[in-house]
């Protein structure tokens, strides 16, 4: 057991830092740090920079253009990127579809889609959730009926994150309705410009457009776009959900937010002294910092165990639950930290090119908004309640 980074790992960290210092566009990092809205171009810019370095598809095997990094390296990379203000890597093609295609796709599908993901020729979105299904993913109602060498798809998907940017969607559809809910599901790849597809924005509680509804009406999808076997889609979806994801605990985000929180608390005044010196506030910050130190170690323990061959089923649920609790706690402390300046709500201030003076300190305006936005963490990707059910089932074996 050694809780320190090895010399190689530290050297790797230095190389990531040097890369970020050199190649992460400053204007982009500033947008991220100031909580500005990112547009499609921002993500594409960052993907291209990473791809040029060969670091875009870090979870893929080397032979498909991945990095072959150890879990610790992935963690270091993630941490440094977020600390430097890099945008997140849009996960749908790279972290979600990619691994599924690599494991279950045909050679033709791999040849066609993997390079297009790497080169950002396709922006993918995820077509899983449906209205009325919620956490009960298996109860989906979108139907695909075989018609010659096509499927005809009818139904509705929702919570489609960044679906308004997407060229393509990987989609769960019902191909057999006579069987149990989890059977009869297939995994289809659908062009977003197919006739019959309509994308409608969903405005979230904090007034932003990030997610969408997608309506499918008699959409014709070539049968060649079926991934794996018909009616086996649930297997692939589950693989995707439990596939190793360095970021599931959000440790790097939390570290960066905690750092931000401490800066804010040093700047804000409480009874004439820095808020950071208020004993109650300092105790709240310290408590979440201690939780986060433990979580960072737990995350690495889990990633290393997974790499060593232990399946990450139960652990990944635990990381999701506690990791999101910690992230949410930090955003809660951030909104508290700024006191009355949590109130101002000026959505146009998050547009690029907004030049008016901020209301209150410059860091204040995005914080209440982020607090509300981050409520989603414990809801999506399998709500924390669902994760608890999964863990309990495995633990209790009843």
């Amino acid at each position, binding site marked *: 057991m050694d809780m320190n980074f090895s010399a190689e790992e530290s050297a790797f960290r230095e190389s990531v830092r040097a890369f970020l210092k050199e190649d992460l566009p400053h204007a982009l990092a500033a947008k991220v740090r100031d909580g500005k809205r990112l547009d499609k171009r921002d993500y594409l810019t960052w993907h291209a920079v990473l791809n040029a370095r060969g670091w875009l598809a870090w979870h893929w095997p080397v032979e498909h253009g991945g990095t072959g990094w150890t879990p610790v390296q992935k963690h270091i990379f993630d941490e440094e990127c977020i600390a430097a203000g890099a945008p997140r890597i849009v996960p749908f093609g790279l972290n979600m579809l990619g691994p599924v295609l690599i494991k279950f796709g045909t050679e033709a599908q791999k040849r066609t889609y993997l390079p297009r993901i790497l080169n950002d020729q396709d922006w993918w979105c995820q077509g899983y*959730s449906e209205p009325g299904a*919620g*956490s*009960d993913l298996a*109860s989906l109602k979108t139907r695909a009926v075989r018609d010659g060498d096509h499927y005809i798809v009818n139904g509705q998907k*929702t*919570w489609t994150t960044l679906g308004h940017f997407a060229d393509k969607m990987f989609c769960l559809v019902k191909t057999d309705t006579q069987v149990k809910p989890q059977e009869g599901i297939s995994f289809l790849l659908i062009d977003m410009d197919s006739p019959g597809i309509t994308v409608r924005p*969903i*405005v*979230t*509680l*904090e*007034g932003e457009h990030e997610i969408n509804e997608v309506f499918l009406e008699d959409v014709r999808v070539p049968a060649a776009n079926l991934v794996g076997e018909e009616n086996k889609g649930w297997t692939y979806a589950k693989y995707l959900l439990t596939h190793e994801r360095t970021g599931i605990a959000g440790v790097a985000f939390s570290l960066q937010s905690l750092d931000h929180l401490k800066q804010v608390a040093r700047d*804000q*005044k*409480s*009874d*004439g002294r820095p*808020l950071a010196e*208020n004993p*109650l*506030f300092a105790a709240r910050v310290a408590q979440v910092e201690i939780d986060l130190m433990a979580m960072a170690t737990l995350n690495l323990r889990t990633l290393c165990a997974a790499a060593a061959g232990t399946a990450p089923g139960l652990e990944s649920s635990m990381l999701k639950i506690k990791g999101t609790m910690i992230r*949410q706690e930090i955003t*809660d402390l951030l*909104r*508290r930290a700024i*006191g*009355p*300046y*949590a*109130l*101002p*709500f*000026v959505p146009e201030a998050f547009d690029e090119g907004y030049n008016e003076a901020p*209301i*209150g*300190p410059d860091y204040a305006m995005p914080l*209440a*908004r982020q*607090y*509300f936005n981050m*409520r*989603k963490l*414990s*809801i*999506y990707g399998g*709500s*924390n*309640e669902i994760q*608890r059910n999964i863990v309990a089932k495995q633990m209790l074996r009843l």
Partner: protein
Amino acid sequence: MDFELSEERRILRDTAARLFRERYPIQARHDFAASDDGFSRALWTDFADLGLIGALVPAEMGGLGGAGVDIMVVMEEVGRGLAVEPFLASAVLGAGLLAEAGTAAQQAQIAEVIAGTRLLAFAHGEPDSRYALSEVRTRAREDAGGWILDGRKSVVLNGDTADALIVSARTGGDAADPDGLSLFLVAGDPEGVTRRGYGTVDGGRAAEIDLVGARVSAETCLGTAGTAYPAIERVIGRGVLALCAEALGIMEVCRDTTLDYLRTRTQFGVPLGKFQALQHRMVDMCLEIEQARSATMLAAGKLDAPRAERERTLSAAKNLIGRVGRLVAEDSIQLHGGIAMTWDYALPHYAKRLTMIDHQLGDADHHLERFIAFSKAA
């Protein structure tokens, strides 16, 4: 000891409830909030006509009530309706300050406030004051028989539309000194006063106000210069009670909405409410709301108690409201799931207002510390 509302107050409550039910659907509320004023002047007049504004102002000052229970009854309905009208800013704080500290001439304006024809706002908070009541750096110096004001006021509730601002400024003492504070009733934006209005997260309105060599007459000073602190504390206390009651109304809507959702939404083939883990969280939410209601009732009943007892009980209520408010906002969103993350659903707007109440007139931690301080004094 008696926990029942009098007949009169039951009528007041039912009147308010009916008005909100009939005239304040959530879409109307969004429209009011999005309008230039940020609220409905037409409804404000109707509220006035029905006595809801007057109920917040002591009878001896031309109001119709003004006791703790009156504030509680009206503001709970304001919370249930998620109203954006300036009940707190103009009636509780504005008229309250005139009543507590104003000269007879100034108090004459209370009638207009109650009639809904004059809007007041209390410009007190400053960029570094956070929630400290005596932390005022805005200065007023005497000059040629009047006063010159210099300073910056921040997040002034409804400060953009108020016909007159009540501005706190220091005429003596140091930054956090309770002594040396004065209030000025500043109407019509004299030269040197700049307001920058904006919307707030909860659908309300506020303003940043700059005072740069702003000259006001001697008559604008409320009462005797340098002695305003006790009045500020008492009126902020009424504001704290108002916010607690508003939060209660909101929390009950959140609870009822969530209960309905758990009863009707099915997952895995059964209503969500069949899942024991969700049931137990729902029960905890309900009992904490009952706790919050009890603390608010206690504070309402002690609004005229001696200072330490009054302030201690008010801080206890605001602390509990802050803690329970967070629980209710977060759990009612979580128990709903995705739908509660969308603008088109009513619940998240309630949750946002509930959360922002913790940022007005002192958050849970501020009032915990204050409770400790006043408990020593009590």
